[in-house]
């Protein structure tokens, strides 16, 4: 069953075609990789899907069951509320807030009380706040961050910041999660740990995941299907094994002796 369909997506900056004519389909429950050389347009695809940019042309459709809804060009918060969450290539946490607050903010979407009742803190308000805290802590537990819930995000080590970003993205209860280089800056041990976590949350939250990553050990290990982008266009699409042996991908991206991992 389709969850996301991208059709003929194009984005140009001035004369530069960052993304050109990209079409892809992601089914519900899949874990799909998006790889390609630096500057191929991967992050731009994410930015288009999440509404950070509006496309020059093309459509992006998000499915709810059979029902498809175009989301291109909408504001990021709308798209998030439609069920798409993301992390950023350059970590963008709320650095001066606590770990707990980072997650709580992202739960805003599910908050049930009205604007006026938050002025007086009615009983309903209080139980709802408690729910938010409880659920946030549950979420942090998955990432082993519950013990640090009162620390400022900026004071976390890099790896934990990446984890927190994923936790925050999950807090909005997305159907589709976009991860932009989650393993960047991590050492192999940490990367291994990350892949475990990705597996776990995927099961737990019934997630569909689209993942950008340059660490092939991670990508090849966990992705079921991979799209390869080069100069803004899809040059290959297939299972990890197919991709590994694709000549075009090897010359453009992987290099001859990269697949020892």
């Amino acid at each position: 069953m389709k969850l996301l369909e991208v059709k003929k997506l194009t984005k140009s900056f001035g004369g530069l075609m960052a993304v050109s004519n990209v079409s892809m389909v992601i089914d519900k429950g899949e874990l799909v990789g998006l790889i390609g050389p630096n500057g191929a347009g991967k992050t731009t695809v994410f930015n288009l899907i999440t509404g950070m940019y509006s496309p020059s042309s093309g459509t992006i459709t998000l499915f709810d069951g059979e029902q498809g809804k175009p989301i291109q060009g909408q504001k990021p918060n709308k798209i998030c509320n439609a069920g798409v969450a993301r992390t950023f290539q350059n970590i963008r946490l709320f650095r001066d807030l606590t770990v707990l607050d980072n997650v709580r903010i992202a739960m805003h979407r599910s908050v049930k009380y009205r604007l006026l009742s938050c002025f007086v803190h009615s009983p309903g308000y209080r139980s709802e706040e408690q729910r938010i805290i409880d659920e946030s802590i549950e979420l942090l537990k998955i990432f082993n961050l519950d013990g640090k819930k009162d620390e400022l995000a900026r004071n976390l080590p890099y790896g934990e910041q990446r984890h927190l970003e994923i936790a925050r993205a999950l807090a909005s209860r997305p159907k589709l999660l976009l991860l932009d280089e989650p393993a960047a800056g991590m050492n192999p041990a940490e990367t291994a740990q990350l892949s475990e976590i990705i597996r776990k949350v995927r099961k737990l939250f019934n997630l569909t995941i689209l993942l950008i990553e340059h660490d092939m050990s991670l990508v090849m290990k966990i992705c079921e299907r991979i799209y390869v982008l080069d100069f803004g266009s899809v040059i290959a699409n297939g299972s990890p094994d197919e991709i590994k042996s694709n000549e075009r991908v090897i010359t453009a991206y992987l290099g001859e002796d990269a697949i020892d991992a």
Partner: protein
Amino acid sequence: MLEIRELNVYFGVIHALKGISLTVNDGEIVTLIGANGAGKTTTLRTISGLIKPKSGTISLDGVDITNLSAKERVKLGISHVPEGRRVFPAMTVLENLELGAYLRKDKQGIASDLKKVYEHFPILYDRRRQSAGTLSGGEQQMLAIGRALMSRPRILFLDEPSMGLAPLLVQEIFNIIKSINESGTTILLVEQNASMALKTADRAYVLETGSIVISGSGEELAQSEEIKKAYLGG
């Protein structure tokens, strides 16, 4: 060439570097590895003069440079590719590169170095009029390295140069590091990609929460079980 003795750095109450000593000999590639937050970046920033140490000495070619300004250190031949690239976003690629040669006056030398950088990173030539802030992550990394080379350094610090680069480029970058080194530049390399780093380096130091715990030749460390377990994912 570079000698660091008993370096102590504090951030407020955090004791980030706890009496670090290390040496880099002329012509070597030395790598500094360690987990996140171990203090690798802090070490580099201290050596290049962005952070003032509480105690300890740094000397270059036997001259104490602990109290020199960053500018004077650049003059003496230190160049630093900082963590997170730190390109000048609103300036074009070309302007960024020119700034790398800020302290140099030899127009011809600069021009030929510029050519060399473009040879190393052809994509930078294509993007030379684009503002650096809109480059992709990998492109920015190349720019940062290119910019550092423009000062024609004698010793180059690289802080996680492979971060966010495509596999092909990772190899490429390490090749470039090697060739830069071969053309006479001494290199101090901080890396998360420990296996590549150890492969490339002559010697290595392992940093853990602000102290150096192990040091040795690159090969030696690459074989060490401890290292394998902690840093090589083995």
